């Protein structure tokens, strides 16, 4: 009798355990926060709030102004000396490769600083210059207050951890925002070709 009861309880507990694990991993798909963020955004695009952004030129724009075209967004801080330096180069290259949709106003590249205390317009301009900005279609911006920064990081799912060397380690990626201002995809930061293909496919008639 004890054996039967134990079997019954164990089976129930195992079933509950499997259900909880399935829930905690989006059906055994997402074991890390990064995968979870990508699945969640792909399946439930999030509207990016119309937050004000200060550009490298010192002027203001906002996510509301930027609607009507596709956006490729990355999060940066200009003091970065590790892989963010590759991020800058990649955006300059995307600016070149995607010159046609940029020229026709269908696409905009956007680098958002998550270190606005340090990244004032001159630092942002210098960042773009360093990586060979071609002058059109790529904005480097910073949020204008810490509340906006927190909102942006939450919506885009960006986590920046101090690396103990006066810098940050962050989950770098290329985020895609559609013309309706909805965040629809998070793509690998080290695969700009993939991001270019994604946009070209969306823009194809």
């Amino acid at each position, binding site marked *: *009798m*004890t*054996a039967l*009861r*134990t079997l019954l*309880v*164990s089976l129930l*507990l*195992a079933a*509950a*355990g*499997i259900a*909880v*694990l399935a829930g*905690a*991993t989006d059906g055994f798909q*997402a*074991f*890390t*926060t*990064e*995968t*979870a963020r990508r699945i969640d955004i792909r399946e439930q695009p999030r509207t990016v709030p119309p937050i004000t952004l200060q550009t490298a030129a010192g002027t203001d724009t906002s996510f509301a102004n930027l609607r009507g075209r596709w956006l490729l967004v990355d999060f940066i801080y200009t003091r970065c000396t590790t892989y963010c330096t590759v991020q800058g180069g990649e955006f300059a290259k995307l600016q070149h490769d995607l010159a046609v949709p940029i020229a026709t106003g269908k696409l905009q590249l956007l680098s958002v600083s998550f270190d606005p205390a340090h990244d004032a317009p001159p630092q942002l301009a210098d960042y773009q210059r360093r990586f060979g900005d071609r002058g059109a279609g790529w904005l480097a911006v910073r949020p204008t207050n810490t509340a906006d920064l927190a909102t942006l990081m939450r919506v885009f799912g960006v*986590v920046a*951890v101090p*690396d*103990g060397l006066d810098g940050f*380690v962050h*989950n770098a990626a290329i985020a895609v925002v559609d013309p309706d201002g909805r965040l629809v995809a998070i793509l690998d930061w080290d695969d700009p070709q993939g991001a270019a293909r994604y946009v070209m496919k969306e823009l194809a008639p």
Partner: protein
Amino acid sequence: MTAPRRDFLVGAIAWMLLVIPPMRQALGSTMTLQMLVQIPLLAAAGWLIAQAIPARLDARIARWNRSGISGIVLASFAGMVWMLPRALDAALDDPHVAWAKFLSMPLLVGVPIAMSWPRAGFVVRGVLLIELIATAFRLGWLYLISPVRLCSNYLLDDQQQLGRYLLAIGVVAVAVLTWKLMWGRGNPDRV
């Protein structure tokens, strides 16, 4: 004071200390501290608290817990949740998940293990220990070789350090277990 009562008090105080914010922050600051110190201590607090469970209640539950199997199944699944990198992250970012961790590790891992381990026979104990050791090797190896950060809140070298510790724990556990099997009490050849 009786021993069960003392254990209960120590466990309850340890639990409270682990939950207070400065301690939470300190033990959540690195992946190694969270996985190898905070989570095991929470389970240990639950184990101590369970020592105060009255004998009558313990006996009633035991009717549903032959050889401690039900309790070990419960503890295994609850423990597995807190091995997901995503859960470790969420426990730092989301207060609800943090509470789930602080409640479930003592109550759904520590307590059932305390009620089940003494009832578990040689085979059940062996299966549990081997599975724990295998998990230490699997996770340790994964953390050591993964080129990407599995937790958004922790650095890569922290993850690799945890991997090395887990492998070391696996090796030590195998050594201790082997020693016990060969020369420890209960060895049928040892007369």
